[in-house]
């Protein structure tokens, strides 16, 4: 069930995940295709968000969790190894959250935040990064005249695009998106989806979504999760038109979930 006709960037092997005593993910094996968009779909509580957070070790922040198995980045970096510095990792793997979470600073400072904490203070570099990142995030034209005003004055959709700009400003290879459009109106959602399609090719994108149409619109590959297990993984077209498993078909056609 694992398609292998693509270049893989992260390979997940026998991943088990526990919140305290209860197991949330069971024996996940998959390859994440490089420079493609992969969508994780599945009903609420199926573990897709938990799985996403394994890629940049955000689960570390939760406290009582344990994880076995491995996620190998670029064939040699073991993401889950206890000596692996999550700080270095998170600079390579950016994340966009369900709720847009800009810092209560200016738009400019939001974008350069990641660079500043990494020690980059050169004005010329920062200015350039702000422009390119905001352009990539399709926000430049809307905010170029008010870069130094508070990011809190932006609309919900603009805030989410600012968060995307902020994430790509540190030049990551992978972008994790955890239901990035669930709090946005259809118009803003469409803009974000457009943006995802634009970013594809430069970045490896993993997007968790509840919205089946969205998954079919933006992703190249789709993984269906159910009750902590990876049920089916394949090319989006194939998953949505002729899924190989009955369970996947039932979910996609809306018979449950």
């Amino acid at each position: 069930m694992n398609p292998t006709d693509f270049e893989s960037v992260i390979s997940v092997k026998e991943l088990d995940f526990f919140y305290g005593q209860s197991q949330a993910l069971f024996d996940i094996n998959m390859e994440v295709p490089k420079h493609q968009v992969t969508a994780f779909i599945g009903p609420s509580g199926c573990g897709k968000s938990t799985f996403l957070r394994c890629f940049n070790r955000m689960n570390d922040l939760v406290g009582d969790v344990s994880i076995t198995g491995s996620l190998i980045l670029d064939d040699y970096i073991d993401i889950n190894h206890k000596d692996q510095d999550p700080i270095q990792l998170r600079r390579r793997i950016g994340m966009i959250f369900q709720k847009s979470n800009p810092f209560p600073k200016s738009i400019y400072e939001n974008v350069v935040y990641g660079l500043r904490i990494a020690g980059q203070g050169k004005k010329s570099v920062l200015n350039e990064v702000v422009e390119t990142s905001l352009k990539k995030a399709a926000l430049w034209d809307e905010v170029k005249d008010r870069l130094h005003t508070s990011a809190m004055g932006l609309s919900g959709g603009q805030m989410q695009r600012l968060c995307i700009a902020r994430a790509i400003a540190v030049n990551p290879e992978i972008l994790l998106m955890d239901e990035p459009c669930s709090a946005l109106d259809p118009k803003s959602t469409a803009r974000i989806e457009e943006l995802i399609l634009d970013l594809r090719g430069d970045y490896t994108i993993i997007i968790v979504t509840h919205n089946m149409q969205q998954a079919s619109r933006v992703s190249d590959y789709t993984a269906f999760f159910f009750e902590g297990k990876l049920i089916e993984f394949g090319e989006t077209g194939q998953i949505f038109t002729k899924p190989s498993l009955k369970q996947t078909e039932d979910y996609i056609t809306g018979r449950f979930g």
Partner: protein
Amino acid sequence: MLNSNPGIVKGRFWREGEAFIWLSSIGVGMILLIIGTLLFVIVKNGFVAFWPHSLALVETNSGEYYLGEIKQTTLHPHTGEERIQLKVGNRELYSLDFKWIQSKTISRITYPKEAVAIERTEYGNFYGFIQGYQSPLTGAEPVQGPNVLERIEPSFTEEVQVLARLNEEIKSVAVEMESLRRKILKAQYEGENHAAIEAEQRVLREHFDLLLEAQGKQHTVLSQYQVLLRDAEGTTKTLPLSHVVRQYQPNQMGLFAKLSHYLAHLWELFFDEPRESNTEGGLFPAIIGTVMLVLTMSLFSFPMGVVAAVYMKEYASPGFLLQTIRIAVNNLAGIPSIVWGIFGLSFFIYTIGSGIDQIFYPEQLPTPTFGTGGILWASLTLALLTVPVVIVATEEALGGVPSDVRHGSLALGATKFQTLMKVTLPMASPRIITGFILAMSRAAGEVAPLMITGVVKLAPALPIDGTFPFIHLERKFMHLGFHIYDVGFQSPNVEAAKPMVFVTTLLLLSIVILLSSTSIILRNKIRKRYQAKAF
């Protein structure tokens, strides 16, 4: 059919909780009423204290005369007869400042234009009439006339300035001598030769004695300037001009004159030393002491509280121990402040202070330097007292920062510390500052712990002055809160001190309001900057 309209519902009053809304609004009303009354009394009495009152000459049926300010008209609690309270002043003549006179015994009340009120350096106010002046210029006999004072004033002022210069010099020589004395003590303690210093001391001592002699002479010169006074009864009295702080004739003062008199008094209040065991004069040392105490307290309390709260909220792993600490911190706020005072006395003063003395000032012993009450120890004691407020407020503030934003920072590769410094603390700062404001108000009003950790009725020197090292944290200090207690309840003449108590209270309140409104403005500025939209 009855009740056919479903929109009409009976018993709304109770179901909607109307009664409880009323009850809670009554609660708010009561609080407002109490605060309002308190503020009204303080403000009213505090503001009128310095206004020049007219002097009434009261003539009784039995032919007695009294001159003074009518303070109040009341009914006698037992006989029910009307009576007036007159502030007659002249304490050295009548021994009491106040006199009750029954209204029915009064035959006449007049307001003579030439009646004069004199504020003196001792014995309180004098109310009476000026008979004349005596000075070396005008000869041995007192001279009357409208412009005598103008004639003698220039030379008198000159002599006063001579004395002031002398006093200034004496003060600086005294400081020098004190430092020499310390040097000698130190040399003695370390067994070094100190003959040279002693020689220096002898020279200085001779200079000092000469200065003292000159000062004595100058006092004699000044005592030749006298004012001859007569009270309402006709008793005459001479008063050295140098004892006169201010003289005015309230019965012929216009509004403008009264206003300038009032402002002069305010100036004195803010910038002068107290007189007459604190019941008159200014509050300058107490204002400085209070402000410095609160600021020094903040310097210790705020960083300590914030750091502790950050550790508890952000780094310590939650569990039984942390919960116990949290409860303990909350309970610290409930310890009676006098207990903190005792702790401050035994720990800071007797343990740390004495330790410092033994290590750094052994030659001074047994005279303590740090081993006695001082503004440093009082500030530290107050810091302990207020640190729970800061901790609780900071913890709540940190808890109020949405975790989305923290995660956003961490996901960008920030460390926990970077997130704290760049995102969490700035976002929490408005609410942390609210905690500071509460702590500051609490500290400014606290008196009990100060009484045993360094506050005094009259401090010889300010804790901040022009001599090196400029800030003297070991010094004792004066405090407005203690001043209220001291003037209002410990002074020999409580009735006369009443205006001062109100003024001091008003001033303390104003300082607290000033300090906290500064912080509130600061907080609102920061809050506007970090205003989170739709979180």
